[in-house]
């Protein structure tokens, strides 16, 4: 048994994209000091990862993987905090936390398992399902069109934005490593086919292509790359790679500023 395994029975569907994400993550952290790694998860298929990997973990509530990570990082900035979340988790239920964590440049890495639907509840549309998505709650097709989450994150001042694919484990491992080593808020969107309810593997195999690092500090370039694919089912090319990376002051350095320069007793004296 690998030291990173818990021997917990894995209940992901055979062929689930999450296997690729777990494998890539385990490879990505091989050389890290594991005692300093903490993962948080929300609720959903992605979140079972907390049971499958033998590292510190905080299995949070649905949509709340990110605020948990922020609290952990503020309590102990030495920890490397990695958030696993899903599209239902952080683009529907907890989207405000995602936006604000990016805006703050909280020093965490968010790995977004994007299977583009609610899977554990057996297939309903999320914020990134294609327009007219037919699921159990929308048999006639969903009456909404998707958002582009990476465009939203660029607008929210995320300092590292990347996309990878669970079917390209080598690429994903590399991107996760880069995201973890980035100082500040990093997001890795992982295209993650759901074999049971929305199997996009063929589409991704055909349309994804890997881009090289170019002008990573340019918002305009980033936006162009991010907008190449609009999350609809039509035959568009889907770039994988790092779209944007800049350096900015870290949130915990700016927020944890209280110095102990007075005592309760001194204050009580002052209040007489």
């Amino acid at each position: 048994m690998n030291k990173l395994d818990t021997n917990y029975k894995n209940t992901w569907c055979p062929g689930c994209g999450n296997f690729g994400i777990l494998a890539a993550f385990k490879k990505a952290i091989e050389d890290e000091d594991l005692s300093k790694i903490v993962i948080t998860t929300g609720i959903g298929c992605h979140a079972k990862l907390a049971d499958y990997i033998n590292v510190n973990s905080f299995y949070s509530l649905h949509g709340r993987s990110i605020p948990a990570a922020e609290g952990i990082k503020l309590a102990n900035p030495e920890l490397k905090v990695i958030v696993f979340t899903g599209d239902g988790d952080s683009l529907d239920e907890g989207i405000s936390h995602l936006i604000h964590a990016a805006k703050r440049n909280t020093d965490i890495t968010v790995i977004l398992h994007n299977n583009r639907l609610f899977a554990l509840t057996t297939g309903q549309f999320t914020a990134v399902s294609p327009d007219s998505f037919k699921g159990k709650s929308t048999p006639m097709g969903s009456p909404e069109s998707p958002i582009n989450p990476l465009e939203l994150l660029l607008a929210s001042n995320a300092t590292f934005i990347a996309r990878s694919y669970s079917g390209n484990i080598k690429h994903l491992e590399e991107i996760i490593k880069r995201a973890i080593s980035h100082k500040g808020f990093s997001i890795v969107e992982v295209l993650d086919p759901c074999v049971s309810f929305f199997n996009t593997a063929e589409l991704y195999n055909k349309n994804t292509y890997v881009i090289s690092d170019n002008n990573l500090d340019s918002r305009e370039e980033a936006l162009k790359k991010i907008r190449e694919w609009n999350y609809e089912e039509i035959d568009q090319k889907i770039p994988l790679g790092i779209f944007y990376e800049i350096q900015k002051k870290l949130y915990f350095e700016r927020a944890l500023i209280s110095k102990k320069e007075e005592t309760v007793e001194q204050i009580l004296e002052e209040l007489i």
Partner: protein
Amino acid sequence: MKDFTILVGGQAGQGSRKAGLVIAKILNNLGYRIFIYDDYESLIKGGHSFSKIRASDKKIFTQSSELNFILALDQKTLDKHLNNLKDDGIIIFNSDEIKFDKGLGINAETIAKEEGGSSIMANTAIIAAFAKTIGVDFDLLKNTFQKEFKKGFDINLKIAERIYNEVDEKLKIEKLDNKPLSLITGNEALALGATKAGLDIYYAYPMTPATSILHFLAGRKLGVNTIQLENEISVIIAALGSAYAGKRSMVGTSGGGFALMTEGISFAAIAELPVVIVNSQRTGPATGVPTYTGQSDLNFVLNAGHGDIVKFTIAPSNADECFKWGGRILNLAWKYQTPAILLVDKEISESTFNLEIDQEIKKEEILLADKKGQYERYEITDNGISPLAFPGGDAIVKATSYEHNEFGLTAEESEEEIMAMQEKRLRKFEAMQEEVDLMADAIKVYGKKDSKNVLITWGSSVGPSIEAAENFDLKVIQIIVLEPFPIIQVMKELEDASQVICVEQNALGQLTSLLSKNGIEADELILKYSSRVIQKEEIEDLLKEII
């Protein structure tokens, strides 16, 4: 005068609150015990704000309806409060704003401007006129100004000096032998108590009447970090994340924000993460009456969190108790790895009291894991408390919102495993009950302790109840720890009771329901739910009909 009240009022932005505080500090220095009630509306400029400063030779915890002095910065102050002024009461008013044919008119704004100040310094002129009227030495006025007006001290002093010399002394407030005490609000006191117990981080989203906890801690250098987040949900979850990583955290809000936090309470209970949640009540439901008081969240707080859970709910009634329980509740949360709620209300949070500390508060030791063998976050133990370890060291720490096994992995297949973990928590709840059973101060008893007539009350109803009871054959029981319920202590005090009267500030009688659940039936209820705090005089009038 041994017990008197001064009302200072004006529009929001005219500085009536500051004037009230300065007057309170002067009287505090003369040995009087102080209670300040601050009244304001949900707006920034205009409207009507006032402070009522009550001074007494005895320690006091509530306001008085009757006024001895009115200091008016605007017309509305006179219009609204004149009928509460005693027959021999004194009025001092800002004649630049107010036309009135009695009392002492001071053209306060004109004088403030003539001395080089701005019209807001009219409040200084009024303070000085009042100080001279009651015979305060100029030196005391000057010293107080020096402390209270760090900016613009010179101009304020010039204004004060001029008025002081122009106004006549009407009476002489005698100096008492009492030592002056700190003047502090309930919110400030609970923040300091928690700090003594090792508070590391305070998380909040602004919400009246809890906001001043955030402001106070942010403005001080106590080594407590203050973090404002995007909503109350992130506030509670981030606090739980910090607790998981070993830092003592507290959050604060009012009813509406507390409602958002409830998913975190249930989570904290199953994941056994310590957190203190301050709920400072306003009048509900929903947005309710945001800047006024009430006690209508009790049912909700006691029942907050889905699943089979027990937490601590503790309701102090004044600054002394806020300080003590603000510290103790943080220690209790960590001892039992549980969510714990400090339930106060606007009247306690934002009123100013004299503080006396009767118990040393310090950060108490917690049960930590020793380093041998594989760490199990949810180890099954006899008393249900599992040793703590934090990420970053040798142990792998797995916390979870799912039902789980001892290591912290999801339990789903095995009924035995699921029951074993619930039963571990049940044993912990029993230990929490035993802790409360042994707390002599989980309740407090006042009044005629051998009386068969018993008044039971809580929170901000306690101060007015105690004073109202003074003229009756009545024993008063204050319940401070509401969950787990201190049944042994309460039953002991009720052994000889023939009549039980409940006093609380909500419409349904929520403490009365809690008592009933514990087998105690109230004979009479005194309820107030107008959003303004219940006055001792109001309780007295109703008690006359009952007893």
